[in-house]
């Protein structure tokens, strides 16, 4: 085992990985994995405006692991992630895997 195996993922690594799943762009934007570029653009603009207006309904989003806290940076990062085709594919894969399991406020999205 010691030859090529490095120390396994500890709780820290698992926690960091969990946080990455929590911030899946499709969850952040409350969009389905097949959302079009126009859907993404429009929804992100709507959410950004709602956050700027400090609307409570925009501050939380639903994920399979419980609600997440939505921020303006997270919305921008989500848009950038989905604009990259390779990265979008990974996020789609994970989001489809968790499809229908979202819990928390705004399960249907604002």
């Amino acid at each position, binding site marked *: 085992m010691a030859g090529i195996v490095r120390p396994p993922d500890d709780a820290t690594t698992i926690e960091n990985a969990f946080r990455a799943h929590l911030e899946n762009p499709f969850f952040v934007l409350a969009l389905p994995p097949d959302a079009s570029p126009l859907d993404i653009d429009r929804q992100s603009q709507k959410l950004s405006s709602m956050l*700027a*207006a400090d*609307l409570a309904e925009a501050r939380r989003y639903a994920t399979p692991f419980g609600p997440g806290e939505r921020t303006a940076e997270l919305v921008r990062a989500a848009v950038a992630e989905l604009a*990259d085709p390779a990265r979008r594919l990974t996020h789609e894969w994970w989001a489809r895997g968790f499809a229908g399991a979202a819990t928390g406020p705004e399960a249907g999205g604002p």
Partner: protein
Amino acid sequence: MYIGIDLGTTNSSLAVFDGQAVSVVPNAAGENLTPSVVRLDPRGNVVVGRRARAALENDPTSTRREWKRLMGTAELLSFGAGSGRALSPPELSAHVIASLLGDARDALGFAPRAAVISTPALFEVPQNHATVEAGKRAGLEEVVLIQEPVASAIAAGWRGDGAGTWMVFDLGGGTLDVSLLETTEGRLRVVDHAGDNFLGGKDIDQALLDLVMRQARAQLGSSPALRPRGTAERTGPRPRRALERLQVACEQAKIELSRAREAVVLVDAADLGLGGAAAQDSGPAPTEVVVTRADLERVMAPFMDRSLTLVQAVLEKNHRTADEVARVVLVGGPTLTPLVRARLGQMFGGRLAEGIDPMTIVARGAALFAGTAGLDARPRPSAAPARRGLSVRIEHPAVTADLEPFVVGRFLPSPGESLPARVRIERSDGGFASAPATPSPEGSFVVQVELERGKQNQFRLFAEDQARAPVALGTERFAIVQGLSVSDPPLGRSVGVACADDLVQVYFPKGTPLPARRMFVHRTAQPVAARDAKDALCVPVVQGESARAHRDRLIGVLRVRGVRDDLPAGSRIEVTLQLDRSGQLHARADIPALGQTFEEIVHLLVPTATVETVAREVEAVGRRADGVQRRAFEAGAPAAVTASSSVAGLLLEAERSLPEAEGGDADALQKVHRLLLDANTALDDAEAVLEWPDLQTESRRTALYYTPLVAAWGTAAEQQLYDQVLQAATAAEKARNAPELERQLEAMRAIGRASYSRNPRALESELDWVAAHVADAGDVARANHLVERARIARNEGNQITLRALVAEIWTLFPAPPELQQKSFGSGVR
């Protein structure tokens, strides 16, 4: 009113966007470009621009130019014996910005309070920080930075020339930026960019000057060999002035040769100490040296080769060909040179964007971006306007490509005031009216509006109460411009934390939109003594694309010291990094066990190399290059030889610049340092080729080990993902792509470990292993204690406790000290 500033190495300009059109603000001399030159006259007054530049010839010691490369360094530029003062690069830039803002004030009738300032795409965090500082020193309240290629693409895209892939080729005074952009559905996105911080018009001017000097010597009958720089040619006041005059003359000749076939350069042979009897005979009269366009193209050829190599690399990295690029936007004065246009035209089938002034395109784009960001330059009202109605906050995009954006509003009633029952929004031209909407109990509403394409759309908000009577509002009107949307300025290089095992935890990958904030949990790799100010744990922050920390650039160090209790190794530490829109870095570390937060971050500037250090580095890189090339030949690895083929040229250029650096030229020092970084990167690539056979072996061993584990214990999803990763690894191996193969192997290990963890015997095997190696732990006593507790848990069949204890034991196994040292002394895992 939105303002954009192009703060160039050679020239700067300012543009204004009024919501409809963009225009460049001329300076007091009526010119669109203000030379980035600052002079301190004998009375200590600051002179900026053309008048300062005119003094370069006669009073070069009191005049400074081309300091942009030194932004982010601690360098102070002195202004000679007359004033006795020294200014930092941000202070110099502040004077230029203040001059531009003064011109804007004269043109617009108000002093601008906010602006977007452009920076090269490869500017690092410390350099961006210095640029913001310069803007604030110049009197701006708000400064937002934009990368120059993004700005120029915005300016070119604003003409609505359709979708597709573009390239921006920005060859300025000191830097080259090559950017690949996409416009789809009205949204502009930077796909990738690369550049060279030491390739620009200035380098071409220097090469032309060298040619002129050689020709002058030949004409005067002295040796044509170049005399080393840093000698009497530069150190005396007369030779220095003569050299400055010659530099200006060469630059003018270069510009003239864009239109003419030849130009005459006057050389003060006597002042420059150019030997030969002819120089003596000619007396004070200057020597005329004729330079032809062919001469210029010959000296420019190596720079063009380097430029086009960079262009080709960007295309290949993004799996695109030159044929797929719809347009190439040219930016910067040097792109007016026929050779540049000819070579690029040849590469891209003539698809060069025409009709856009390459000298002011960046300022125009910056002004347009200011509009997108809503960065109004007009002064804020000093007092709140008299209240006329119900207060309402309206949020909407200032500029958008979407024809049906959302408008979000929130009423802010004072005590005694009621919320309206209904709202609606109408477009002032009568072309749109929304259906009535009911505000939420919070007083908010979200309404989708329709825009007229390509113009500023004016809207008015109406509200009425239950009785349908109009409700007076404090704010009713707003405007949205329909045009090109811009993705947030992307981060030029990845930023992350260097860990003790010399690996990087990436927080912000390259391309992350700014601003951005991210938190990761780490573990301390060493203990920290309580209340010991000297005992600090370092969290190094690095910038770069290498997974190995020591190959990236250290940009900051977060220090954890003065902890109130002893902090053992393996303690949880939550590190948050934040980059603002300008790329400025903020960092904090939270240690839950202590309830303490640490925000002491040392911002490291672009390292300023000393002459002694750099001279030793040149020797060291030379020795390393010899070693790598010897290994390459012995191994019969031509690919390694190819990978390191650029090193000889880089070292030669570094050696040529060393004497200049010895003469006190800070710019040359930085240039040498950068060249050595590039040489080391090329040697890293060559060594990666040499290590390829070992990587292939590792790939096979990893697959052999983990494939059965995943097959036996992995879930269906893990098995599917593992198959995909295996295919990707095979493809990477076939393409001999070492970084990609390393990434896929890491993914295989992660999936394999996750699968293996489902083996009921997995934990017991791990416990046996760590128990056998406990002497290697950083805290042996604690490790022994944990092993004992884990054995008890195992005997009791308590899997949950056993898992937690084994995980904790692993955190006590440190990285080897030499790795930790390599990783900037990182104290975190």
